[in-house]
């Protein structure tokens, strides 16, 4: 009976002999590139076609509520505003293909999870322009940096001319204004149709506010 060492030596020799003349197709690099490009085109086609079909089917999401925001933008998602997550099949997470035009959807999970003021927010929390008691909809409360912040979300067809670009890592294409103690962030909707409008107190960290939205591509 061979020992383990003898057996494994035999195995190594057998494996080496069995594969000695085995070499990959010299054209393998090109084959992989060709198949990879084809697969990427198919993924991009799906990523574009499925959300477009969902929009065409009328998937919409009204965000309006009284007192949502005291800015000039219309506080209702435009008719062509993007559908929220969950209303269309998930396609983008399966592709790492970046689509150059930035677009966003509202993260309904965050909206749902943070719709009530956290317990550690004082009763008279002054997350101006909103107070805890006002608790306007739709929007979300955040407890961060030891303070309470409320971020309202709405929609607008256009952004104001004086909005300036905001640079937040991972969130391209954002614009914002800061007027009368109110910060407003504008995020492009899917396919460049309309803008999501995030409204908050001036001292709210923009990075906290953008938790409400997720890139849609």
């Amino acid at each position: 009976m061979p020992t383990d060492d003898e057996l494994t030596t035999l195995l190594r020799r057998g494996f080496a002999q069995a594969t000695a003349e085995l070499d990959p197709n010299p054209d393998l690099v090109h084959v992989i590139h060709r198949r990879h490009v084809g697969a990427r085109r198919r993924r991009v086609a799906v990523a574009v076609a499925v959300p477009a079909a969902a929009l065409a089917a009328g998937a919409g999401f009204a965000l309006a509520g009284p007192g949502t925001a005291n800015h000039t933008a219309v506080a209702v998602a435009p008719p062509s505003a993007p559908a929220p997550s969950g209303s269309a099949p998930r396609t983008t997470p399966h592709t790492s293909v970046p689509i150059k035009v930035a677009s966003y959807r509202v993260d309904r999970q965050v909206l749902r999870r943070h719709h009530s003021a956290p317990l550690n927010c004082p009763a008279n929390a002054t997350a101006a322009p909103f107070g805890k008691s006002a608790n306007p909809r739709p929007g979300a409360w955040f407890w961060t940096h030891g303070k309470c912040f409320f971020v309202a979300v709405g929609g607008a067809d256009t952004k104001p001319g004086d909005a300036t670009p905001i640079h937040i890592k991972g969130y391209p294409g954002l614009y914002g204004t800061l007027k009368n103690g109110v910060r407003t962030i504008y995020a492009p909707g899917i396919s460049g149709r309309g803008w999501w409008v995030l409204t908050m107190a001036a001292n709210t960290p923009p990075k906290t506010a953008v938790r409400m939205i997720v890139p849609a591509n």
Partner: protein
Amino acid sequence: MDVSGGDFDQFVRDASPELLRTAYLLTGDRGHAEDVVQTALLQVARKWRRLRGEPTPYARRAVVNLAKNHWRDRFRRPHESSATVEAVHAPPEADVLLQQVLLPAVMDLPVRQRAVLVLRYFEDLSVEQTAAALGCSTGTVKSQTHHALSKLREALADPAGLKENDHAN
């Protein structure tokens, strides 16, 4: 995901011979092995940016998983004959014992035991690396190695007694 640069091409050139040989030993068929390697490399291409630095373990694991899937699928197709490591690829002076007894016995092992042997004694991976490639514990690797070597030892001791093994694994 940018595989247009030279790094990915170089990776394919460097890694594909070893991946193909591993896939061949796992599937027992050159055509299937080539399919497996192409699919595994496409998976690497999709994740190339995230895999920067260490794509080989990912590619190896993909090959093992795809080969296991292939092996499972073939038993759903009753008309396909059992795989053998084709002697045509072995040099003529190949050892008869190896070609006629040992390698067929390896192909008769359950797929996980075969994968353990290929990874440890062909790719020369450690127990830990083999466990990572198979997605199991190091204890499982050791026990599967032990069982596989025992079966091979029996086959070598009694070449005429080689029997059809069940491949359920």
